[in-house]
Structures are given as structure tokens and as C-alpha cells.
């Protein structure tokens, strides 16, 4: 088991290195530099030279790459080019908690509501509740979150005036962005749970459980749910990734002061340190998340655990 975890950690570091390198290559492959895209205004040539020197952009690319890898290894990306008074780290520690909160709340809401919707649909397969739940799910999957966000703002902020249309200051302001971001993943989870639950309920061990006179509720919660969750767990990593990147768009629409603003701006303005820092930071989070998902899978399905033990 320790052996397994150790090898996974090694693979995770390798993945981060590959992502960091790719980011570096892509970043330098897109035309433009941090200094010639300033609102179309051209900087004085000496000023630009000085700036490039200051940020090591005058050095040959291999050297830049090494400097960059050093900053990845030490988690120190130096100051932003666009906001010279802030370091990349301070931008992350400033914006990320908000994004993280939005992402986490969204994930939890999506999982819980997707679970309830999916289980209800499965238990009432081909009945009214099933059709309602699956209609919601299809709508949820097909409406992009930014469209849903605009609809929600129009209805609940502008027309009804119940909830604020922007910011991240009270629970009220968190409701609409969370709904906008959670609906898609919720719908995916609900459909997946429905399918796998219907499948699980036909299994022999469910009949065994019923032959013991257990209540339908207990059978679903204890005997069926864990098995039905397995395919959802596999998908959780992808869903979380979708939610994380989704936060960028939603934050923009609701003017939420999270990472999204810095990330999008940094790409537009070729703010190299910020691009690199946030990309590596976000990929690290995703990789750790996928690792946790794998561990959860082993916990849910004891057969997996044994398999890994045998391999290592």
C-alpha cells in the first residue's frame, strides 16, 4: 500500500512537470509579449528592454525555462507583470479562497442534489417522478452555465429582486452563482446515478437483501447506493475539473473576486508569471483531487483495494 502511494506521488510530480513544461511552450508559442499589447500603445524601446531584463525575458528560452522550473519547484513565481505590487502567490492567496469556496459549495450541492434526483428517478423508473427528474437533467446538461447565470440574474435579481445579482458578500449572493455552476454537474450525476442504480437493483445481492425482510429504504441506502456510486466516483475528477474552470466564467458574470479575474486577465495581457503560477497551481489541485477520488474508489469497492495490493 505504501509502495502504491509512493508511486502515485511520483507519477503526480511527473504530471505536474509535464503540465508546467507544456504551459511554458504554449505561452511562448502564442504571439505577443507582456509589453507590446498594452492597449495598442507601444512602449518606449529602452523601457521595454529594461522591463524584459527585469523579468528575465531577454534571456534565451532554455535559460528562461530553467528559471521558470526553479520557480515551480520553489512555489515562488515572483511579482506579476501587470500588477507589479503583487506577487503571484499573493494573487493566489487573495483570489483562491473565494474560488475554492464557490467550487466546493457547487460540488457539494451538485453531488447531493444529483444523488437525490438520480435515486428518486431510479426508484420510480418510468413513472412521473422519473420523467420530471430526467427532464430537469437534460435541461441541466444542455443549458451552458453562463446562459443559465444570465437567466437567473434576470429572473431572481432583476424581475423578482430576491437575490443580489453580483458580488460574494453574504449567503444570499452565493445562491445564484452556485445554482448556475452546479446545475450541469448535478444533471450529469443524476443521470449516471439513475442508470447505475437501476442496474444495481437487479443484482442478486439485492434480492438476497430483500429476502431478509429489510425495508426498501435500508436496501437502497445500505446495499445499493455504494455500488451505484462507483461510476459517479470515477467521473468526479472530471466534474471537479469542469467546476473549477467553470468558476472562471461564473466569477466574471457575477463579479466575484476570485481567481477567475486574474487568470483570464493574465492570459490577455501575457502576464507570464501569473499564467504559469495559476496553471501549475490549478493542475496540482486537480491531480490531488484525482488521487483522492482513486482512494475513495478503493474504499467503496473493496475488490479494488485487494487488486492494488496484489500489484504492488
Amino acid at each position: 500500500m505504501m509502495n502504491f502511494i509512493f508511486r502515485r506521488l511520483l507519477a503526480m510530480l511527473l504530471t505536474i512537470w509535464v503540465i508546467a513544461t507544456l504551459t511554458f511552450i504554449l505561452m511562448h508559442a502564442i504571439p505577443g509579449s507582456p509589453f507590446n499589447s498594452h492597449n495598442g500603445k507601444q512602449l518606449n524601446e529602452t523601457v521595454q528592454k529594461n522591463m524584459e531584463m527585469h523579468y528575465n525575458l531577454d534571456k534565451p528560452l532554455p535559460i528562461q525555462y530553467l528559471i521558470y522550473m526553479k520557480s515551480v519547484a520553489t512555489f515562488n513565481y515572483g511579482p506579476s507583470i501587470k500588477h507589479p505590487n503583487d506577487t503571484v502567490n499573493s494573487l493566489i492567496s487573495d483570489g483562491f479562497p473565494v474560488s475554492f469556496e464557490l467550487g466546493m459549495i457547487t460540488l457539494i450541492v451538485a453531488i447531493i442534489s444529483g444523488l437525490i434526483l438520480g435515486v428518486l428517478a431510479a426508484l420510480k423508473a418510468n413513472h412521473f417522478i422519473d420523467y420530471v427528474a430526467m427532464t430537469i437533467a437534460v435541461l441541466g446538461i444542455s443549458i451552458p452555465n453562463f446562459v443559465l447565470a444570465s437567466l437567473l440574474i434576470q429572473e431572481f435579481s432583476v424581475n423578482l429582486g430576491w437575490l443580489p445579482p453580483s458580488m460574494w458578500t453574504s449567503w444570499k449572493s452565493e445562491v445564484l452563482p452556485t445554482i448556475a455552476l452546479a446545475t450541469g454537474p448535478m444533471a450529469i450525476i443524476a443521470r449516471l446515478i439513475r442508470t447505475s442504480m437501476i442496474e444495481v437493483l437487479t443484482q442478486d445481492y439485492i434480492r438476497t437483501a430483500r429476502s431478509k425482510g429489510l425495508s426498501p429504504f435500508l436496501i437502497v441506502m445500505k446495499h445499493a447506493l455504494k455500488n451505484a456510486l462507483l461510476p459517479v466516483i470515477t467521473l468526479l475528477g472530471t466534474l471537479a475539473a469542469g467546476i473549477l474552470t467553470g468558476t472562471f466564467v461564473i466569477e466574471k458574470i457575477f463579479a466575484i473576486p476570485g481567481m477567475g479575474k486574474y487568470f483570464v486577465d493574465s492570459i490577455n495581457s501575457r502576464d507570464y508569471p501569473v499564467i504559469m503560477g495559476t496553471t501549475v497551481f490549478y493542475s496540482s489541485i486537480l491531480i490531488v483531487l484525482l488521487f483522492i477520488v482513486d482512494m475513495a474508489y478503493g474504499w467503496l469497492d473493496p475488490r479494488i483495494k485487494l487488486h492494488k495490493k496484489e500489484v504492488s
Partner: protein
Amino acid sequence: MEPLLEVKQLHIQFQAHGGTVKAVRGIDFTIGKGETLAIVGESGCGKSVSSLAIMGLIDHPGKITNGSIIFKGKDLTRLTSKEMRKVQGIDISMVFQDPMTALNPTLTIESQLIEGLIHQKKMSKRVAKKEAIKVLEWVGISNPHERLKQYPHQLSGGMRQRIVIAMALICEPDLLIADEPTTALDVTIQAQILDLFESIQKRTGISIVIITHDLGVVAKMADRIAVMYAGRIVEMGSKRQVFYHSEHPYTRALLNSVVRLDQTSHSLKPIEGSPPDLFSPPKGCAFVDRCPFAMEVCGRVQPQKSRLREGHQIECWLQDTRAVAVRKEMLASQL
């Protein structure tokens, strides 16, 4: 003596796309206390469906359309599902065919073993666990403390079937239904499991319905035998009566195919032909297409039950006084 279970005129149908499958078409049988009844018949004749009906586990698209299942004076077909849950596992329990799929792969043996005691008998976890260890020792499982912590995939097939049996016994039911409990197991393990059933019965006086298509199992276990064909019980009697004094062409053909298997194993000749389509079962005897002694009346009219001797009855037109000649022919034949 009042029987423990009495099944009367039980009819079970399944609504399918092409129409209605008449899976069980009016069966009657009883089981006394401490008795073992074997239900035999080819695959698809309605053995499993009948046992599931007794357990209250027939669900959509299946339905009990007629008849009653009287257990200890109560008609189980009239109970609500909530009332039926008080019978399941407590009064009647079931052992299924395939121990590889009958246990939940994600739950420990302990959690599956004691849940009946905890949720049905409201025992504390501690007491239930003690009980579980006792039952595991009973069914011949060594290191029961260890086993409780394990998951099904960590155990062999025979071991799992012992667990399933322990699970069925843990609430001390009066009736155990075992649906082909050895079919999925190795031959050596099969014998052990059958021995286990016998010792359990000696110890507890439990009544057993054993469902099988293996006449070897019947010979070892049964007190009485019910032979099923196409949703009906065509012959019913004590083991001796059915094995040595059967007068039903189907039963005799069934017994004969085993004898042939023993003598020249390469020339096993099961009964030629196949059972009728249960979407539209024949008006008369369902065996008519395969029966070498079939008469004109057989295909037209369902034969009534006739009593050969005390406790031994069959459904066959050959018992009619007008068929004496054909009956003699049958008794003289190899079949």
C-alpha cells in the same frame, strides 16, 4: 397434522412484450414440520418462480394471479409488503443458487450477516455479533472472528455458500427454501453443503424446500418429491414412491435419463423435444408433444389428479380406466 406451509392452486404470470407468460399454472403442495420437500424439473418449469412467490419476492412484471400460500394459518398472498417483511428472513428464508453473486461485494460478511438480527429482531450489535459467530461455527466456518471482517471476494465459493446459509439461518426461521443451492459449486463442495443441510435439519427441525434438477441431490435429501413440468406439479409423492413406483411418463423419462447417464456416460439421452411455450400452454397435458404414450384426449383436456396410493398422486390420462391397455404398455416399457 397441520402442515407448516400449504400452497393451493397457485398461479403466477409474467406480463411480457409478446403477451402473458403463464409460468406457474395451479400448483398444490404442503410441507410438514421438519420435512424436506424436493421440487424437481427441467429448467424453466417454474421452480424458482414458485419459491420466490412463497418468499413474497415476485415483482413487476410478475404477479400471483390466483391461489393462496398458507403459512402457519396466514395467507401470505394477502399480506401487505410491510407485513410480509416480518415473515421474510424471520419465518421463511432463502438460499440462492449462485453464492458468487448473492452477497454484496461492498459490505463485510459481518454487516450482511447481522443486519437481519439488528433490523428485524432489534438486537444490539454486540449481541448480534455473538450470535453471528455461533452460527458461523455451526455452518462449519473456521476462524469466524476473522471471517466477519472479510469481504465476499476474499472467500471461496463453498465458503460463501456457507455464509449465505448462515445468513438464512441466523433468525431461526421455520422454513428454509434452497433454490439449486449446489448447482454453482464443485462436486466435492456440493456433497459437503448437502451434508450441512442435513445436520442443520437434525439440529433445528427446520423444514426445507430444496429446488433442483439434480436427481442425485433429491435422492440424498428429500422426504417427499414434487415433479414439475411446464408450470404444474405432474407428480407428487414420497421419495420411495416417486423413485420406484412412478407411473407418470415424464417422471419415468426423467429417472431413466439418469440411469442411462450412469451406465454409458457418453450416450446421455435426455427426453427428446422441449417443453411447451408458456405464452400459450396447451389446453391438455403439457407433456403431450414429447410423450410416447400420448392419446387423443391428452392434447384436448387437462388430466385431473389421480391418487395412486396414500400420499402419491399424478396428473396423467393413463390412470383413466379407459386407458388400461396403454398404461400396461407404459409400465412394461423401458420408460
